[in-house]
């Protein structure tokens, strides 16, 4: 009962701002609405007892990525004071495609058997996550590290050229 209520509240907190993100005529407001949406997703992670992912979600998405998006939008010309339309003349086609995709996804999700694992969760899964990153998933971990490093160096190169 409590869990269901929490899920419904969190779903509303996640989805309502998400609608604002794609409809608002003010770019800063659209970017700002990402934050409650991210926090709602954090709540969903907590509900699934994935506390570590929830913490990272706050720190990276709400605390860093949203800030960077806001930062960039506020620095651009079209960022403040101008009203933008977020949709073009293809609304009908776009809506049809989105609707078809929703139906396909819903059908897929409803047909998939979701296995439930019995047993209790460990009190803290941080060490397990870290261990998995450095053993079974080392390749994915290192590749994403490399991608981030390359983008960092690329950003530095672009920033230096202007001087």
């Amino acid at each position, binding site marked *: 009962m409590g869990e269901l209520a929490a899920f419904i509240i969190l779903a509303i907190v996640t989805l309502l701002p998400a609608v604002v993100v794609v409809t608002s005529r003010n770019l*800063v407001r659209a970017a*700002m609405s990402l934050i409650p949406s991210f926090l709602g997703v954090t709540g969903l992670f907590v509900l699934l007892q994935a506390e570590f992912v929830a*913490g990272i979600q706050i*720190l990276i998405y709400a*605390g860093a990525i949203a*800030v960077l998006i806001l930062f960039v939008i*506020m620095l651009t010309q079209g960022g403040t004071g101008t009203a933008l339309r977020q949709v073009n003349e293809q609304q009908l086609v776009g809506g049809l495609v989105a609707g078809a995709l929703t139906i396909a996804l819903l059908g897929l999700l409803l047909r998939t058997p979701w296995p439930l694992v019995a047993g209790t969760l460990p009190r803290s899964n*941080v060490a397990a996550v870290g261990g998995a990153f450095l053993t079974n998933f080392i390749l994915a971990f290192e590749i994403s590290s490399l991608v981030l490093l390359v983008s960092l160096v690329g950003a530095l190169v672009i920033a230096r050229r202007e001087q």
Partner: protein
Amino acid sequence: MNWFLEIVKAVLAALAVFTFLAVVGAMLGVYLERKISGWIQSRLGPKHVGPQGLLQTIADTVKLLQKENIVPSNADAITFNVAPLMAVVAALLAWIIIPFGPAFGRVLVVRDINIGLLFFIGMASLIVIAILLGGWSSNNKYALLGGFRSASQMISYEIPLALAVMVPIMMAGTMSTVGIVEAQRGGWLGIGNWYIFGLPGNRGLLVPGFLAFVVFLTAATAEVNRVPFDLPEADSELVGGYFTEYTGMRFALFQLGEYAEAFAMAALTSVLFLGGWHGPWLPGIVWFFIKMFALVFFLIWVRWTYPRLRLDQLLNLSWKGLVPLGFVLVLVTGWLLV
């Protein structure tokens, strides 16, 4: 009805923490700030309201409560009004993982969560959004510049802050604040096992422990926008920065958030490196407050002693000094622990 009870408990705990922050953090903090700054500058500081000016902040709060709440005509009203609330709520949430000490047979903490420190840093990073939005929505160049400075500063200093926190986490093997304090129990006079001195069986960790303490305190000072890292508010260049346009209680809420965050950083420093509530002779809660106020005194002392850094010096210190040092500290700690 278990969840109903939990919600009632959460509301009561929020009220208790908010009252504590308003009284100890904002009111006492502002009073201490003014008294100590007066002492450093050979003045008396507030003197007239109450004994030794103790009621000065209460008088100021009552004054702020009576002030009109002005929203600039070109401001984005909703964002403008929500931003100070976000700052306060984030600072308030950061406090729920701070353990005050043992009392009534349990540790006095709102919630001992297993990702406590991650949660704290996440909440500290949410304050940037409040400052950035407050600065943008004011539609004022000074406020916007303050918000931008704050965003670039806090994003840069979050990284050394998180890296410095990694050192005690690795020593204790847990992210729970209560767990970290418990791991620092005992030793010589109840001081010997503090993480600033390394681990009892591994005194080589003294060096990374102490350096992590220094990095954490520096990054924490920058994270709460205090001198010498107060570029976002820089009164002399930006007329107050992001809260230039705020009046009355909304201005006070930003101040409350700032002081609550500064006190939270002081409390967390004592939890991570100075043994939390452990210490000789005195009860735990007394030790917690002694350490917290000693660190708050240190922050105030620094504020009234050092000049402000330039923006390039500020960013260089983080990216060329603290971030590499933080990575080395994590590496050395890991190497010494294995």
